[in-house]
């Protein structure tokens, strides 16, 4: 990597994980093509994530000030990049397709800005897999800045989000994602909220002036590393919340973060989960299991540095949640100056310890198998059931990333052959839709499969398997074309409704499956 690119990386990426760009048109300046990972192991998402490191294969659709980002998304296909130039865009952008990159182009320090004007709900909504959102300045939305509902293999990086009504960045129900290099402030709930997700890295973000800095909730396998978390009400929260369909949080590493001066008065909405966080909370662990807290700098948090408690923290119960925080590991952390001006609740707790100062580490006592290294250096309360960690077996150093080495698949059929995939797609489409009108050997609403087969396949007697397959391919294509635009051919039966909402691939798969229902074609049948 040459020096020029390195320089660009540092300035443009705002401390982000790694950077991916694309060709600008001739005559447009400054933004080189960078397809690489940073060689800074901290910024590299645990340095071993494979997310976001490959170049886009599709076309680049440019959006300039005065134009509409959504229009570009609507015409984009998987692999395409929507490149948004500096300007102010007042819209909600939604991405319900896979493989789309929304990439802001920062020119001479000018960012593309998404402005919710205090009236729009969310800035960017996505449900697709393999979506990247980068280089946007998002302001004044009533809801969230970047919000994923479903969507695996996401990359949300190098964005500035300020003044969001609920969450700054909130991926939900996604597997395998990275949130890195974002700067978030003045968020009325959690700045970064990883909810009900698996295999997520939250790396090198700056979060401040918000109610919660980073929240990991009902999520498994998360790495929170290298973040600068300051001046929030609570710094980093690891929770299980009640009443959600995913009932666990476990395997979370909080490492090498700066968790400093999180003393902001709580301005959370009444009834929200964070409204109960005392100002001055560094790290809060509720009911979550297998959390490792290692190599953080935790200072100046006026109530406590690390607080751990059980599910009783919440007013509402959930009988399907195991309430205790088990197997917490607290290793080397630099902690000082915490508890200087503890919230009343903490103060009353500490009064029993004959001190008015809040603790570095407080534990309500629930949970088993918790350990701490060198506890003598901290002011603690409630750690009597901790044992001393064995560093070698407890350190999280071996885990470089929680993301997956291969993208999380969108489909259940992992590694299936094209033929098997087509068969499954055909089977599910045929029974899920076509079976409403067609039976194998009888008229339901439409003609029987046997009759359709007779119509589309000639006499196959004596044909080789290869020839039969060719016949079937041809017939399936014909059926696919027909059902996309059917004309009535049987006057005694109702007309067939148009099935053009299915892609050609799906229509062909369903047609092939239907043809394979015929007993003459055993070589196409695999059903037991």
């Amino acid at each position, binding site marked *: 990597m040459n020096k020029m690119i390195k320089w660009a990386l540092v300035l443009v990426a705002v401390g982000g994980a790694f950077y991916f760009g694309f060709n600008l048109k001739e005559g447009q300046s400054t933004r080189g093509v960078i397809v690489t990972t940073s060689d800074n192991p901290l910024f590299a998402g645990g340095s071993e994530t494979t997310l976001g490191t490959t170049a886009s294969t599709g076309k680049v659709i440019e959006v300039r000030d005065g134009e509409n980002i959504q229009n570009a998304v609507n015409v984009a296909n998987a692999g395409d990049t929507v490149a948004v130039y500096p300007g102010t865009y007042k819209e909600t952008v939604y991405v319900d397709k896979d493989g789309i990159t929304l990439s802001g182009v920062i020119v001479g320090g000018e960012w593309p800005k998404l402005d919710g004007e205090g009236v729009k709900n969310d800035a960017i909504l996505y449900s697709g897999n393999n979506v990247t959102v980068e280089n946007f300045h998002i302001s004044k939305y009533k809801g969230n800045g970047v919000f994923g509902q479903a969507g695996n293999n996401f990359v949300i990086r190098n964005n500035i989000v300020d003044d969001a009504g609920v969450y700054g960045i909130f991926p939900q129900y996604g597997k395998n994602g990275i949130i890195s290099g974002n700067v978030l402030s003045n968020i009325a709930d959690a700045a970064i909220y990883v909810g009900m997700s698996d295999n997520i890295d939250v790396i090198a973000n700056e979060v401040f002036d918000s109610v919660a800095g980073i929240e990991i909730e009902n999520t498994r396998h998360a790495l929170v590393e290298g973040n600068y978390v300051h001046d929030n009400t609570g710094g980093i929260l690891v929770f299980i919340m009640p009443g959600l*369909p995913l009932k666990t949080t476990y395997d979370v590493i909080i490492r090498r973060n700066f968790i400093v001066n999180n003393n902001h008065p709580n301005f959370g909405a009444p009834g929200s989960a964070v409204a109960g966080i005392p100002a001055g909370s560094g790290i809060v662990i509720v009911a979550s299991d297998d959390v490792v807290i290692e190599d953080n700098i935790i200072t100046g948090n006026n109530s406590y540095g690390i607080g751990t408690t059980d599910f009783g923290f919440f007013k509402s119960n959930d009988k399907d949640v195991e309430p205790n925080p088990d197997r917490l590991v607290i290793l080397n952390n630099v902690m000082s100056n915490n508890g200087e001006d503890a919230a009343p609740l903490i103060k009353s707790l500490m009064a029993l310890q004959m001190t008015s100062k809040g603790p570095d580490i407080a534990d309500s006592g629930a949970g088993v198998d918790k350990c701490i290294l060198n506890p003598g250096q901290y002011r603690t309360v409630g750690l009597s059931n901790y044992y001393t960690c064995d560093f070698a077996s407890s350190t999280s150093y071996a885990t470089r990333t929680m993301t997956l080495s291969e993208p999380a698949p969108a489909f259940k059929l992992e590694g299936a052959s094209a033929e098997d995939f087509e068969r499954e797609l055909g*089977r599910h489409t045929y029974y899920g839709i076509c079976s409403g009108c067609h039976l*194998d050997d009888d008229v339901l609403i439409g003609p029987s499969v046997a009759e359709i087969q007779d119509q589309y396949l000639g006499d196959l007697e004596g044909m080789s398997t290869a020839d039969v397959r060719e016949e079937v391919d041809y017939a399936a294509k014909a059926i696919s074309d027909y059902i996309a635009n059917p004309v009535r051919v049987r006057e005694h039966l109702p007309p067939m409704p148009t099935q053009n909402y299915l892609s050609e691939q799906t229509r062909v798969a369903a047609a092939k499956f239907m043809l394979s229902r015929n007993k003459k074609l055993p070589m196409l049948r695999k059903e037991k």
Partner: protein
Amino acid sequence: MWQVGPKIKHASAVITASFFVGAMTVPAAYVKPSDDPAFTLKTHCPPSFHLTEDNSCQFSNMYMMYKSLENVGTGGLRKGIPDPRDGFTPQEIDLGRYLFFDPALSKDGSMSCASCHDPDMGFADNRARSIGITGEEVSRSAPTLWNSSFLNIYFWDGRAASYEEQMLGPLYAENEMGNTREHLLETLNGIPEYIRLFKQVYDSDGISLDQVYTALAAFEGSLISLNSRYDQYAHGYHAALSEKEIAGLNVFRSFVARCAECHTPPLFTNQQIAVIGTPEPEGMRRDIGAEAVDGDKTLRGGFKVPTLRNITKTTPYMHSGRFETLRDAIEFYNKGRGHAVGKDEELEIHWHIHEPDLTDDELDLIVAFLGTLTDENFKPETPKSVPSGLPLAPASANDI
């Protein structure tokens, strides 16, 4: 659209009619043989199911192509669905269909499952509260049965975990179908046509209650609605929805409205209990909901998040039908956290109930979007007659 006036009139008509039926000591049809030709049971599976070589109907659907986190079957446009209740034989499902529509299942032969779960009314009854065999209203509304195959909690308060557990409620509650185990068994075993059909399905002499429950579960588990225009959109055909409906989807799933946080695709329920603090109809005491199940005060006033599929077909809305229209039901969420709780009541309102401050236009957009969740393509056929020979119960009590 429903008006208050006619509904009350209908209700009184129903009471009269039910009393009349109830006054007859023995339902006529039990004692005389059925005039119907022998009933035949279907040998093919209902739509959405395929027949295996061992004669069992297995569910199949495009949503089964997708994964979901921890296999919970919830989470977004293209996420998997929970495992369905399937594996029944075609004959068993069809026997369940006859039982479902047969008034012989009630104490006096006056009502069937379909009386409150009418396929022509979204498998509900268009009533605020259903009317039972006594002619009086019960305390809650009949939930739809569409896609109940995928659920793991039943009843508004979530107190049952299976069809078999659930159906004991309406069958034997004195103010619902009013039957007893003994009477139900006696009734069915006195109907030769059922003896014959049960023997065909279960190869047994005589009918057992477990067989009845299983057959009913088989039928209920076959009611699939996953081919709405929304589904076409979700699978990738974006032209299936109008611009307005897509805007509605975006409000629906926004983190301001937060509808999708509990009414999560693909089933449009996350199957959790939520305390949202809706008002009861005038004059009704607060229903404590899930608190009554195991005494958990934090779930006071909590109810199961209902599916929104076919929601336009099942007015009125909420557990006791307080809201006549979808617009009213949606507006409830916009009126502020706890606004209808009452000052003498303490509820732990769900954190997603807040002050979203949506515009009137946005409320209308949500209504427009919910209309895209309608799909009744696979509505089962209502039998013309049932093995007991009893007249089919009125399509719904309020049709009288």
